[in-house]
């Protein structure tokens, strides 16, 4: 017999009914999965990345399956923040869950413009800065791959909003801890780790990179060990909460991420194969906690970090 458990967790000032959120880019803008998943059951939804103006994205093919993984090169196609606020935000506002808006830009100014536009919208519970898109000015490296630029964009956005500010880290760096420190010092309220891992597939028949965007981002269970490592590294380095993401599919996966230091998690690729993944995880969590001898999800946070009993 599994006892009913209060699954609430907090990410800084943001209280979540449970620690399971939909990951940005894999759950659209809300309505797409509404007939297939009970959105009100989720801890929250991170909407697909929005930029100041519409972005076209990359040529297809945009996804390619790999062993226990998925490569994507969507290229951050989105209708722009204005259309997002008009066409999708009202739906998300009524969905009965926390709304996280993932923000993308090519320059510091572009990030700020999106966030400024969102200031007018009461429905936004948190901003998630996606600093893994290429920064055109700095020669093709993304803001997320350099501590100085990561801090710069974080500080600039911090200056224009009081909203909870989460910064999403790229795993494609030598030392994620350095980026984490830099953005925490610049005013981030929480970190999301990780975005996709740079990868590639070859289409043997065409003798070409398989994806229209040539390389792409690897997600899914294949990257879970990489994500756990980054969460464990940054959770030790910074004092702000970490949201774990990468290959999560089961309640046990959630427990692993929380022990590694995550206060909450996001589920991305697993939704494609089973749109009820998140609800199933939420249902399984109480039993999982009980088997692990934990009274609440918060009991697990950081349990595997050095120096814990």
């Amino acid at each position: 017999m599994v006892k009913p458990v209060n699954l609430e967790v907090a990410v800084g000032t943001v209280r979540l009914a449970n620690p399971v959120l939909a990951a940005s880019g894999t759950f659209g803008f809300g309505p797409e999965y509404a007939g297939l998943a009970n959105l009100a059951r989720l801890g929250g939804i991170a909407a697909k990345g929005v930029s100041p103006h519409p972005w076209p994205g990359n040529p297809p093919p945009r996804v390619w399956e790999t062993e226990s993984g998925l490569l994507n090169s969507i290229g951050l196609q989105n209708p722009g923040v204005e259309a997002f606020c008009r066409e999708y935000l009202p739906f998300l506002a009524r969905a009965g869950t926390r709304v996280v808006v993932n923000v993308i830009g090519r320059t510091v100014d572009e990030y700020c413009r999106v966030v400024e536009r969102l200031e007018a919208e009461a429905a936004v519970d948190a901003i998630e800065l996606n600093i893994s898109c290429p920064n055109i000015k700095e020669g093709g490296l993304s803001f997320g791959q350099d501590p100085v630029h990561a801090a710069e964009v974080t500080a600039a956005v911090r200056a224009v909003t009081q909203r909870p500010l989460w910064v999403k880290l790229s795993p494609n760096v030598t030392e994620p801890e350095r980026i984490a420190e830099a953005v925490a010092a610049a005013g981030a309220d929480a970190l999301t780790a990780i975005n996709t891992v740079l990868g590639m597939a070859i289409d043997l028949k065409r003798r070409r990179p398989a994806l229209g965007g040539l390389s792409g981002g690897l997600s899914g269970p294949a990257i879970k060990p990489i994500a756990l490592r980054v969460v464990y590294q940054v959770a030790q380095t910074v004092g702000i909460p970490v949201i774990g993401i990468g290959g999560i599919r089961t309640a046990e996966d959630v427990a692993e991420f929380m022990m590694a230091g995550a206060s909450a998690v996001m589920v991305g690729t697993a939704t494609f194969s089973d749109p009820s993944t998140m609800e199933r995880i939420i249902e399984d969590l109480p039993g999982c906690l009980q088997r692990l001898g934990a009274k609440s999800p918060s009991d697990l946070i950081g349990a595997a970090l050095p120096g814990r009993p």
Partner: protein
Amino acid sequence: MTQPAIVKAKIHSVRPVAVGHFEMLLESSQLAAADPGQFVHVRTPGTLRRPISFSRLDRVHGRAGILWQVVGAGTGWLSQQPTGGRLDVLGPLGRGFPAPEADRPWCLIGGGVGIPPLFAALQIWGDSVRAPITAVLGARRGDLLVMVDDFRNRIGDVQVTTDDGSQGGQGTVLGPLAHWRARHPNGQIYACGPTPMLAEVAQLCRGVERVYLALEQRMGCGVGACLACVVLAQGKQGPEWRRVCHDGPVFAAKELVW
């Protein structure tokens, strides 16, 4: 339109229908109520589901068919599922074919595993079309042709082509289509098959009012959320991406940009 759902459908039967091709009947009145041209996203052991179109829609018995060629791990797995077992499918998905106009000659152009959705269209709408109906069915070789008998049981004019001439006329479906187009300037054309074939159909039938193409594209979610499955279409302000899984898979040829 039926709302898409996760259906754990009972497998009524699976049978080989050509070299490396199988057809499966699923028991589900929900799926059987789909529009021809819609598809299901089939859960297989990998990271992603696999999109397969309906090959037949038996609304009376509440059965929907899917027909596929084994090309990789997903379709290979699918062909090993036992009768009586359950298949996890997400569907019906996408926008299927529009109903054909009753008084226009109707041509169904199918290449390879593009043939099945056209049979579903014929099955559902064949009786409502009063003008002549023609099917042109092509494959690389005769032993890869599917559903020819199903078409022949319903209409008289079924033309077959194979690349190597091993069955029907040698060549592609484009030959008979050009012919048909010349004789039926007012006709309506529904096509499904490999993308290069569809591009040629669109090219050949430029100016024809009602040309509908069922496209394929690599998919992630299948429900419009991930923006993986795009094709280029004519938007109000120039070319824009449309989602095959949600805005398609059927598009009017004139919408598309090649």
